[in-house]
């Protein structure tokens, strides 16, 4: 993104760079002009990269000691917890790391929703992000099966059975997924293989995600296009590096608290009971981060339609850049959207809550209303809002609101171009 071509100072550097421009890349990454008004909600990209690397590194070590066999998996996890040097630490980091990963990704996604980061010209970044999110859910689900506890086994049974809803070929697909006629050893070994594969797919997509980001550059809290580099930007290093580092450390304190003091609070007690195909747990619940989608699945009385609703709830996000018709990115200048945004946040939290409860009576009713509202938000509210909403004036640059350039604001008002 630099204005002028980068040339390494040393001769050796120049020789190497002419053949493989790694130094140009490094220079681009350090100089990368970043809006200077990014707030702390923007630090979660870096935090997520940390989460991914942590999961891969701890996962590699766990894989060295874990045995993917229906008779030995549970015991090998206990072996890791007891006999492997600091095995308990590595496993607790990996298990809680998954939850931290999702916590961070939800903040990252909702930040994007608030500031309209998915809008033109950042649609591809957003869609790659949705694919990463889908893969994360797959990896988390597959990983949860590996300890071969009761929730692992029954979770795997419930989720794989969803495929049986597909007309005609459903049953066949389920048998094919299981590698047999029930969840058993072949299922476990293939889940382990896929759980090992997916993080590297995610890593590749993260590279594309960042690459795509570096083409238009970061969105920012006021959501306007900025000149780069300019008075409105700072170089990525050291400004953003240190700020991301500070936020990451704060995040790590929370992470450490979970790992060292309440390592099992986010898991389910039943997963410390070895898998038993003959005993079904009283309530089969997924991990907390999948609960909103679980609630959507269960709120539809028909199995196939339930699966379709659940998948649509995720895939609808990919269409978001076109569903949201407003030209203004940031919710800061969209008073109505801002309100609907917070209703959506509450709606997703409610879905998560009812997802953990038995699907009956009042809970089911709430789940249905919340599910309906979820789709209503994306399919009706957002498209209409873009045309009807009276937005407030948007400043011309980042420096302007800080310096208080009110004359520009007055000029903007007269233009009347932000009514929508």
């Amino acid at each position, binding site marked *: 993104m630099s204005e002028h071509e980068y040339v390494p100072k040393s001769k050796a550097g120049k020789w190497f760079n002419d053949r493989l421009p790694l130094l140009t890349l490094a220079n681009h990454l350090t100089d990368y002009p970043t809006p200077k008004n990014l707030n702390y909600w923007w630090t979660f990209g870096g935090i997520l990269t940390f989460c991914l690397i942590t999961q891969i590194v701890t996962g590699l070590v766990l894989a060295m000691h874990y045995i993917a066999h229906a008779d030995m998996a549970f015991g090998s996890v206990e072996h890791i917890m*007891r006999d492997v040097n600091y095995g308990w630490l590595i496993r607790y980091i990996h298990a809680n790391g998954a939850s931290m990963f999702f916590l961070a990704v939800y903040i990252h996604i909702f930040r994007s929703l608030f500031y309209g980061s998915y809008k033109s010209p950042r649609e591809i970044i957003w869609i790659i992000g949705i694919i990463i999110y889908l893969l994360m859910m797959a990896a988390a689900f597959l990983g949860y099966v590996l300890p071969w506890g009761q929730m692992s086994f029954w979770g795997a049974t419930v989720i794989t059975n969803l495929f049986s809803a597909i007309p005609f070929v459903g049953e066949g697909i389920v048998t094919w997924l299981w590698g047999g006629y029930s969840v058993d050893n072949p299922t476990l070994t293939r889940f382990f293989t896929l759980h090992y594969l997916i993080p590297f797919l995610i890593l590749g997509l993260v590279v594309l995600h960042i690459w795509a980001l570096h083409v238009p550059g970061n969105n920012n809290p006021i959501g306007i296009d900025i000149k780069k580099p300019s008075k409105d930007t700072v170089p990525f290093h050291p400004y953003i590096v240190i700020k991301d580092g*500070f936020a990451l450390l*704060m995040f790590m*304190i929370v992470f450490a608290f979970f790992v060292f003091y309440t390592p099992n609070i986010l898991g389910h007690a039943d997963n410390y*009971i070895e898998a038993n195909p003959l005993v079904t747990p009283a309530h089969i619940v997924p991990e907390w981060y999948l609960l909103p989608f679980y609630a959507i699945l269960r709120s539809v009385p028909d199995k196939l339609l339930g699966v379709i609703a659940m998948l649509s709830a995720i895939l609808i996000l990919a269409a978001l850049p076109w569903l949201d018709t407003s030209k203004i990115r940031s919710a800061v200048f969209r008073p109505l959207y801002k309100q609907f945004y917070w209703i959506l*946040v509450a709606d997703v939290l409610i879905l998560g809550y009812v997802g953990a409860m038995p699907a009956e009576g009042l809970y089911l009713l709430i789940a249905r209303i919340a599910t309906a509202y979820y789709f209503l938000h994306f399919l009706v509210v957002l498209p209409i809002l873009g045309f009807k909403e009276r937005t407030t004036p948007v400043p011309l640059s980042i420096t302007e609101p800080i310096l208080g350039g009110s004359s520009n604001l007055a000029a903007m008002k007269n233009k009347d171009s932000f009514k929508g």
Partner: protein
Amino acid sequence: MKKFSRILFLTILFIGFQFSSIAAEKVEYLKTDWSFKGPFGKFDRAALQRGYQVYQEVCSSCHSMKYLSYRNLVEKGGPEFSVEQAKAIAASFEVKDGPNADGEMFMRPGRLSDKFVMPYENEKAAQAANGGAYPPDMTVLVKARGGGVDYIYSLLQGYEDPPPVGVSLDDGVYYNKYMYGNKIKMSNQLSDGLVEYSDGTNASVEQMAKDVSTFLMWTAEPHLETRHRMGFKAIVYLIILTVLVYFSMKRIWSRVKTEV
């Protein structure tokens, strides 16, 4: 800041919901002060040794402890029996070994490296001996129950005989306040003075329940003390580093006319 407080508010509301619903669903467990709770919590060595005695004399005739070895009894952070004591404990059990040079399986006294001897040959034998109910393995039992150690502690003291009016029980089923559905296939195991503690502690039901629950907490989380100690150091280190990085950040950003 306004946004942040709103998120915080929603999160608290959400967590509050969760806890209130959990509280409404379950009975209150009996309370006692556990030495291992809290960021500096450690096991009470004497309680662990007594707890082992209760497990050995009362529970182990039905409940296995398959992920524990006799050597674990010596390890730091556990009951910390002396090596001689643990060797004697191990040697008091007969372990099946082999095959020997003649291809025969044979019995020998246990060693530190052996896993705890199982009370039954297999799960079916355990069920047959217990009216169809399988006595669960106890190694990670504390972590495998929603209420954790409080649940085990309460369950051991939760029997009511005769059961409350209107509750009819089949043969071999007992009433327990804390059991899921209140019906349990294990009879009341503890009675005052059931074991004779070698350290002279009065073996009341409450005392034995507490000791054996402590022991089970340790079998489930053998590295709990290391975890607590390391956690404190890690978090203090992170906080110091965070403060240093915060001031570096302020300094670096002071070159730019913007808030950070």
